[in-house]
């Protein structure tokens, strides 16, 4: 048992300290695909990574009438049921951010996707072992965004 704990702790240490780069708190990708194609690529990749799209929220209703430049602005809510339930149950403060969101909007024939780096949620939890989850989410967001970039080639 002690051996197992020893290996587990070292594993946690490496996962937490591995230099998996993250540029900053905001993750972004711009694709030359039009909005519908980018949205399709996003949802396909999300599902391939094992996540569920829980809702697609329109943000732009009424905005074009006010002079806003695009009528294609959506927020995609994403998560894995068991993980969201576990986190919200253990850390109710996280509920304000769950499920995580990715915004996607058209811009002059291109499409931009933005999300908060999931690592920012680490600030709200105490258990280091749970932080590994956010590291994986971060890695998955990068991977999804890589897929979207690759889809334009």
């Amino acid at each position, binding site marked *: 048992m002690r051996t197992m704990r020893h290996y587990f702790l070292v594993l946690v240490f490496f996962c937490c300290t591995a*230099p998996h780069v993250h*540029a900053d708190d905001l993750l972004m990708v711009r694709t030359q695909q039009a909005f519908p194609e980018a949205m399709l690529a996003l949802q396909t990749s999300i599902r391939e990574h094992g996540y569920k799209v*829980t809702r697609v929220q329109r943000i732009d209703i009424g905005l074009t009438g006010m002079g806003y430049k695009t009528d294609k602005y959506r927020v995609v809510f994403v998560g894995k049921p068991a993980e969201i339930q576990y986190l919200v149950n253990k850390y109710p403060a996280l509920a304000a951010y769950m499920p995580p969101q990715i915004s996607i909007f058209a811009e002059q024939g291109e499409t931009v996707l933005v999300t908060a780096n999931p690592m920012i949620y680490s600030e709200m939890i105490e258990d280091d072992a749970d932080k590994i989850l956010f590291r994986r989410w971060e890695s998955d967001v990068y991977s999804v965004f890589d897929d979207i970039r690759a889809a334009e080639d």
Partner: protein
Amino acid sequence: MSFLKINVIKSLFLLSILAFSLNVFSAPHGDELYGRYCSSCHGKDGKGGVGVPLALHSFINSVSDEYLVKTIRHGRPGRIMPAFLSLSDAQVSAIVGHVRGWSDAPAPAEDTTVVKGNAEHGEKLFASHCVQCHGEAGMGGKGTGVTFSRKRELPIIAPALNNTGFLAAASDVMIRDTITLGREGTPMTSMLVAGLSEEDIDDIVSYIRSFEKTAAELEQTLNGAGSESPVIIVDSPYGLDETVENLKQAITDQNFTLIRTDFLEHGLVEEGKENKKQVVLHFCNFGFLFQALSLDPRVGMFLPCRVTVVEKDGKVKISTINPKRLSKLFNNHELDEYCEEMYEAYITLLEDAIL
């Protein structure tokens, strides 16, 4: 503990060490790193958009590798460009190498010679020749470059010369050369051609360098938001249903439109099987939303506004995101005022709901 389980854990451990080592020792690919971290603002081919058009020859041929490295490391606090602190030196170097590849000209060597001029005279010249684009005290052109917040036909927004990131990255000689030669393809024209002498230009450089005294103070103010909690959370003295009703009333009283009320697990689990003790209220003020998106379209990822009510162990908590903390994520100080206003609105809303 079975022998098999220990072996599985040992294997996992060795695999993680191997993955760690590969991550550290594999040679970084500048094009991939650029694609991941830079292209969304600077464009796939370095033609710009939100960020500076790095491939512009008058730019890339006039800046040293050191300038690029320091710019990546320091970013431009409050001006969108983030500080990429967690990239390794090799990764930063690979990105610089990729950017450098857009020009056949060799990288100019960094010259750290201190330019000595008369800053007082430089201030007067700055007021007559530079303020129109670079703003009072070098605050930079209006708009921080995020699309929709400026006219797209403008190729570059005049940089904030009082920005700590800029001052840390740019040498005196680089600033002098830029003023002297201008930047072809941008609104920056040669001040030598405009009639200034070399001494005048040295004076302007000294004035710009004097911004360092106040720039650090400005950055400290901007960093203040980083100490804010990411979440605003209050205990409700009421039961879950009553708290939700109070919030609905408070939302209307605060001139927001309630969009919908649903369970946090909506869409995550089968309909009807959601946890009924976790409720989310979505609401919006469209005028406010328009202002925010016009300043920075990226804020949409925290919209529409929402308040979450969770009952656990008989206690009801109301939580929202903290806009003041989130403003830090965008590195756009034009958003700060809006986020402050939004923070106040959330606080009033929560206070009204638990009165």
